[in-house]
């Protein structure tokens, strides 16, 4: 694909060694991330415009922005996901740039294109890159071509028994057969021995036929107990990409992350350096710009396989911020304005250990979302504790949006200090009026398997004694 420093043209027009910073930014999001972006803008001396739905009139992002525009009713599709409304709000308030946060329009290539057509800077990668990474098969091919390992697989439909024998020999066991049109576990078969292969192939095909109307299946290596490890990256518009280390995100329930930490208990300096260098090289080849996260699954033998890339800021970005001291949101803004990475991030090094808990408004046992009015909101503080939240006492958590209401992040000199700090912070976090996942987090941090750092993505299932339901 070669280097594509697209976006350079526009930044280059009014170029000089130090590009002009934005005067005003619209934050196209809600909740804690909208507030987080507003914080970064305030520190950079940039005016802010909040957009909000009718359900969020009394939200803190509306309160702390310099201007606020109501863009629609509670339903996301008519407000936060409504591109014409967001762009109109940007036009009437005359902003230079839009920060999309995470979720909503953040990985919508079309939105990034419309921003560009409206001469508003989209704070994120180029639309072409967002589009490519959004098509998961294509992303895997491009990333593999760029030099990162992906999970070995058949790369397409297995047509017959002959091909099946050939592919299975190449992939090795255990492997998983998946319906090409599939999802939700239908048409999936894990095969651990060659003797089971043929029967499993027939079953998977007939299940796929019944469920999706086509018998097409493909095969890939099955990871029994994988860990989820991801790399934070930043790329500028001058062709340079850096990584800011990894985050361990294996503590998850139904692919929803609950706890993230850095460094990973299983990553050492050499491996971080080697893999980090590969990630940087691959993304420079692709021409990646702004913040992004490269997600890997780690096999029990320590091999890492690329699974996907998120072309936005992540929920768990504060973990990396505490570890490196780099403000990732400010870096995003400065990179989007055309600054070079060295200026945008400054010098940094990795020190200590940081952990984040996602506090959700949900029943800690049944996981049913718990909307309503918060009566008490007492956030913990003290050395090494950070709380990112837009919640407050008397705030109403509406039922229309994501249930995450706060992020509790701690830093210690090492993992054991960080765990101790998180335990006491969880004890001192008081939210009343609605149910939260705080009791579940207390259980996780009291668990010996977690404390020992030897866990995988099935940890929560074992902790709850369920299949993650």
């Amino acid at each position: 694909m070669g280097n594509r420093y697209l976006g350079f043209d526009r930044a280059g027009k009014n170029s000089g060694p130090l590009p002009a910073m934005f005067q005003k930014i619209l934050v196209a999001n809600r909740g804690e991330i909208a507030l987080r972006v507003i914080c970064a803008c305030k520190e950079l001396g940039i005016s802010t415009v909040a957009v909000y739905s009718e359900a969020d009139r009394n939200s803190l992002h509306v309160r702390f922005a310099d201007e606020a525009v109501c863009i629609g009713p509670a339903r996301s599709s008519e407000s936060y996901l409504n591109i014409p409304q967001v762009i109109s709000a940007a036009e009437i308030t005359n902003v230079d740039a839009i920060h999309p946060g995470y979720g909503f329009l953040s990985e919508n290539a079309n939105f990034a294109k419309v921003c560009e057509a409206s001469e508003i800077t989209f704070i994120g990668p180029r639309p072409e890159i967002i589009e490519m990474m959004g098509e998961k098969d294509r992303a895997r091919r491009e990333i593999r071509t760029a030099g990162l390992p992906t999970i070995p697989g058949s790369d397409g439909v297995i047509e017959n028994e002959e091909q099946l024998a050939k592919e299975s020999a190449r992939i090795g066991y255990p492997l998983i057969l998946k319906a090409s049109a599939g999802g939700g576990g239908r048409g999936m078969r894990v095969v651990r021995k060659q003797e089971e292969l043929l029967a499993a192939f027939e079953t998977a095909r007939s299940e796929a036929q019944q469920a999706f109307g086509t018998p097409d299946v493909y095969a890939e290596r099955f990871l029994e107990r994988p860990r989820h490890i991801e790399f934070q990256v930043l790329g500028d518009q001058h062709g340079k990409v850096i990584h800011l280390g990894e985050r361990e995100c294996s503590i998850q329930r139904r692919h929803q992350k609950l706890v993230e930490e850095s460094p990973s208990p299983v990553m050492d300096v050499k491996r971080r350096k080697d893999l980090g260098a590969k990630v940087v090289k691959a993304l420079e080849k692709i021409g990646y710009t702004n913040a992004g996260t490269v997600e890997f699954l780690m096999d029990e033998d320590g091999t890492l396989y690329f699974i996907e890339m998120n072309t936005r800021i992540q929920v768990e970005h504060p973990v990396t911020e505490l570890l490196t001291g780099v403000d990732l949101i400010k870096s995003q803004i400065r990179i989007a304005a055309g600054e070079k990475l060295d200026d945008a991030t400054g010098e940094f090094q990795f020190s200590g250990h940081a952990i984040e808990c996602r506090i959700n408004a949900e029943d800690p046992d049944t996981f049913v979302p718990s909307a309503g009015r918060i009566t008490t909101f007492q956030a913990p503080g003290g050395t090494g504790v950070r709380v990112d939240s837009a919640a407050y006492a008397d705030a109403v958590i509406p039922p229309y949006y994501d249930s995450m209401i706060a992020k509790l992040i701690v830093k210690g000199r090492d993992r054991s200090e960080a765990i101790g700090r998180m335990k006491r912070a969880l004890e001192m976090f008081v939210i009343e009026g609605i149910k939260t996942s705080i009791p579940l987090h207390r259980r996780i941090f009291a668990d010996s398997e977690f404390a020992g750092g030897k866990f995988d993505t099935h940890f929560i299932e074992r902790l709850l004694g369920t299949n993650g339901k």
Partner: protein
Amino acid sequence: MKRKKPSKSGSTSIDSPEVQQIEQLLRFMTEHNLEEFEYSRGDLRIRLRKPSATAMVSAPRVVAAPEIIVAGGLDSTGLSSNTVAGTANASSSASEARASDDLHLVKSPIVGTFYGSPSPGSEPFVKIGAYIEVGQTLCIVEAMKLMNEIESDASGEVIRVFVENGQPVEYGQPLFGIRPSRKK
């Protein structure tokens, strides 16, 4: 729409002496149980009118929502182009809606820029006092370079225009106050 910084164009801000005087007058009216009050000096004319007593009983918690008209001397009709909503607290459309009481509010369905006439310099679609029908075009809201004609969802007399030509409007912001026709 919330704008923290004082707007340059608005001639009446919440802190202005006029508004403070009006608030004094409102207290005066309440003290003396007056339903209507008119005041003029030089080119300034203020008329305050409370809703009828029965309306007050039915909505006791609603702040008295008088119609306040600050008229300019050059305005021969006596009606002003500079109309301030009830309590002069225009920070949210909710309070504006309350202030307008029995009027039917035509609200903006989209975010954009308000235009009262089909083209610059031409006559406005509707004027205060005009009778309009359901489906009649009241104004244009420009969004993303598209001119969207906003039609009335009620028939009746146009009593209030809440926004000025060229003003940005947000979703749900009241544009017109219409006194619905009696007969359907």
